[in-house]
């Protein structure tokens, strides 16, 4: 399944019922140098639109909202020692967490790449 995007500038990549989520390259550009990422613990439940992580850049702290509902089954532990990974590879190695989807229909609310690019250009 191709990568989907939220209006809060997260990306979601789904394999089976597991969604890998992170922030978009556009989001990391806006944030600037990331110095700390606070992630939820494995096993925590997240609700679509609820707080899933906090990204601290040199400038400010920004909340990351869950684009889908489910349970956190894995987090990117590399971000702890190397938060700048988010800047170097926001849509790859800088992923945040994997969520086991409890309502896959929510994916339909997300945008595809061309729609997201258009969204960014218009905001």
């Amino acid at each position: 399944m191709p990568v989907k995007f939220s209006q809060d500038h997260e990306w979601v990549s789904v394999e089976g019922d597991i969604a890998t989520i992170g922030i978009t390259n556009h989001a990391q550009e806006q944030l600037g140098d990331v110095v700390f990422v606070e992630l939820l613990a494995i096993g925590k439940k997240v609700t679509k639109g609820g707080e899933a992580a906090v990204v601290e850049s040199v400038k400010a702290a920004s909340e990351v909202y869950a684009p889908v509902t489910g349970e956190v089954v894995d987090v990117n532990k590399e971000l702890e020692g190397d938060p700048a990974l988010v800047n170097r590879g926001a849509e790859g190695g800088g992923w945040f967490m994997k969520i086991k989807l409890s309502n896959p229909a929510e994916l339909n609310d997300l945008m595809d790449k061309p729609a997201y690019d258009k969204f960014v250009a218009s905001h």
Partner: protein
Amino acid sequence: MSEAPLQRTALYAQHAALGAKLVPFAGYEMPVQYPTGILAEHNWTRTHAGLFDVSHMGQAFIIGPDQATTAAAMEILVPADIAALKPKQIRYSQFLNEEGGILDDLMITRAAYPGYEGWLYIVCNAGRKRQDFAHLEKHLPPAVTLKRGEGMSLIALQGPKAEAVLARINPAVREIAFMSYESLDLAGITAHISRSGYTGEDGYEISIWDKDAARLWQLLLTEPEVKPIGLGARDSLRLEAGLCLYGHDIDETTSPVEADLLWSIQKRRRIEGGFMGTARVLKEIADGPVRKRVGIKPEGRAPAREGTVITDMTGRQIGVITSGGFGPTANGPVAMGYVEAAFSKADTAVQLVVRGNSMPAQVISLPFVPHNYKR
């Protein structure tokens, strides 16, 4: 805030051409960062030389018939010893209100230009300059007047390579002592060059006419050790250096004693007083302040931002963070804030309430990164 149109410094076109991200700051459209980003700019300044446009700051002259008269007038408004300033010497001080709160902090220079012996040159904060100038006009005696610095730019060159770079243009800059100035020619430009700054590094703050600003800016940027630095890195540099930011670490409610700025009140003024706010300042010197500005080092990696509550180990609030973020040179979170005096000793364990969780932290003696001034 007001919707008044933003002002631009004489270097606006330079910032735009360099690809700076421009943001509103104190009524000006200022570069917060250039394309390399805040971290790289911070580190460059600590290891090479950073070039800052600080033309938004307030430059002005206090003019009296002679140094003694001008100094006496100024000493009513600030607690520093101005009468004792040597020609060309600079002092850091604060405008205080009647209650001993800080209206602004500023640099005061005793001018030594022939024919201008009764002049003081001041540099104050951009966001406070209008109030400062009104305050001066209200309180200066008839014999002493305020002259706003119209058409003046201010460029800071900061970092361990600043001296070598500027000396290539005029070797005489090497001889300028820390916290003093010289008026020198820089490639045909008349420049008032102060050995001072806001980064904790050696460096210069260079006052020039607006018409010369772009040429000097470009000339300095041709030097391989020099890169342009925005307000973002300026903030992390000064925070690591333990320097106060007005409106955050100091304001009209904080006194210079609480703010741990007693070093800027020279002995004669502590004995004689005679400045606005004397009663509170001398009482706090005698009895100790109720609260004190300290450095706070969070133990983990999470930054503690301005407004974060500081508690003791039982969870009782003892203070609040006034500046906090990530210190690239300290390689971790750094902060400062006010705590009850009993908790102000270095190494005191405290807690920070970050997003509802208590994080361990320690009171430290500032600065986080040792000053690298040329004394």
